[in-house]
């Protein structure tokens, strides 16, 4: 419940960012750098260039969610079909599992390093690196679901009716993997949000002056002692997003798996 409310809040902030933010997040006010939080006109104060921290926070949350959604989409679009194929046909399973091992051999930061070396840092590349890193887990989960659903009576029934493999996969198995897929999406989202912050913090993700919570943190490190709020605010933003998805995901998992709930009590 708390997770759902927090999640709704975070999503609303991201969607309504242009309405909520009093300033353009990149707009500098050279006359008023390092304003304290609560200053008139600057709710959370300003940074070294006099940029409004609240506006940057709001737009930063928006960028975080953008990267998260793109990463989830990528891992779903690639992971789901491969998981279905691996689960349904055993001979494909061996090939897909080996490809999975190869992907797993590259930690996400290394994928990001490679992408940045090839085509430069950007929001898109950050999302692709994070998305690729989560494909193996997606494949494994969908594969596991497929293996389980494949043995259920309705699939066996469909097979005796001479339904083709493709038809069984799309009509009978795919819709039943939806809940596992949604739960996994709530796992990827917070990881992607932290991943984006890490990449942007290191200069491998979103590029300034575009707003990002990671860039805010890396800027704030330069003047950490002069203005701790500039470092505290973006961190709280990231934590709020992750907490929202973690709590919501936990609740969703419990709701979809009654056994887990009863065991917990």
């Amino acid at each position, binding site marked *: 419940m708390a997770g759902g409310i927090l999640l709704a809040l975070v999503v609303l902030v991201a969607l309504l960012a242009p309405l909520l933010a009093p300033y353009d997040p990149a707009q500098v006010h050279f006359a008023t750098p390092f304003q304290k939080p609560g200053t008139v006109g600057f709710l959370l104060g300003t940074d070294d260039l006099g940029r409004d921290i609240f506006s940057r926070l709001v737009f930063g949350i928006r960028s975080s969610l953008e990267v998260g959604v793109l990463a989830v989409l990528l891992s779903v679009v690639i992971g789901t079909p491969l998981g279905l194929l691996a689960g349904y046909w055993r001979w494909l399973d061996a090939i897909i599992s080996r490809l999975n091992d190869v992907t797993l051999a590259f930690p996400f930061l*290394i994928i990001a390093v490679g992408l940045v070396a090839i085509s430069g840092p950007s929001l898109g590349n950050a999302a692709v690196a994070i998305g690729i890193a989560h494909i193996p887990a997606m494949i494994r989960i969908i594969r596991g679901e497929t293996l389980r659903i494949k043995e259920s009576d309705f699939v066996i029934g469909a097979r005796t009716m001479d339904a083709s493999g493709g038809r069984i996969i799309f009509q009978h198995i795919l819709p039943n993997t939806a809940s596992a897929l949604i739960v996994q999406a709530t796992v990827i989202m917070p990881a992607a949000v932290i991943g984006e*912050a890490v990449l942007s913090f290191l200069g*491998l993700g979103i590029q300034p002056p575009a707003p990002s919570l990671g860039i805010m943190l890396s800027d704030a490190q330069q003047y*950490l002692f002069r203005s701790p709020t500039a*470092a505290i605010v973006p961190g709280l933003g*990231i934590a709020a997003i992750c907490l929202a998805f973690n709590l919501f995901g936990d609740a969703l998992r419990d709701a979809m798996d009654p056994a887990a709930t009863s065991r917990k009590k």
Partner: protein
Amino acid sequence: MIRYLSTRLWHSAITLVLASVVIFIGIRQLPGDPAIAMAGEEASPEQLDAIRSKLGLDQPLPVQYFAFVGRLLQGDLGKSTRTGTPVTDLLAGTLPVTLWLAAYAIVVAVVAGVLLGVVAERYRGRWPEWLSNGFALIGLSVPSFWLGLLAILYLAVNLGWFPASGYVDVGTNPVRGLYYLTLPALILGTGLAAVILRQTRASMIETMSTDYVRTARAKGLGGGRILFRYGLRNSLIVVVTIVGLQLGGLISGAVVTERIFALPGFGKLTLDSVFTRDYPVIQAVVLVITVGYILINLAVDILYSVINPRIRVGSN
């Protein structure tokens, strides 16, 4: 056991080969023509061709691939295009820093995670469990590098307990070296500790409600004995798996931690090489991490099968 090991080794070998192909293809995708980079923009087509044939770039791709693997197997990683230093020297200088940091962080994470996990199980429904669960949720939700910034601000600068940055070689001065690494290791270990905590707690709850623990209790075995012999022993399997699964995250985390605490490690080498487009170093960094990661995972799997006999027996 032998059958399990040979399958596992075989899979790792395939992964290594495929990963090297991916890296080889990745290097071809890097922008810029190496021949132009060596000869300069004004070089004539004949000069460029000469350099290409000297570098073997006019050979068919499979031949180039085997030449690439051959050089790697001889330990030839090339030279940094920026400083001219052999890449192997750069690795030798930076890897120990990161390995000490990672090892320290793993120790911190395992001790804290297992301890808090056991506490959460022992005191279910009471305040120590809430405390432990709260720590887990924060550890999972709060980015460690942000914690790092706060730790520098409050623990290092305001309270003065730890140095805010800097590195002393652990090999030459272990006490000072570890002292300098303490704050970075705590920060890097937090996320891992949270994951270990959750899994330890879940596995302890499961083990403690099994029939054999009930039997042991009925036999009159003491609580401590049951905890160590049955509870923790089973949790150990989970912990080993988690550490193996989380290694990728740990490597990424180490890069960030090194950046925050200005440690002269492998992460710094990685970032410097990307920002200066030092391709031989980028290639080496990716190779070292990938190969290291595959080998460590192999080691984890073997260790796993040693601890848990069911895997050895039931492998097919």
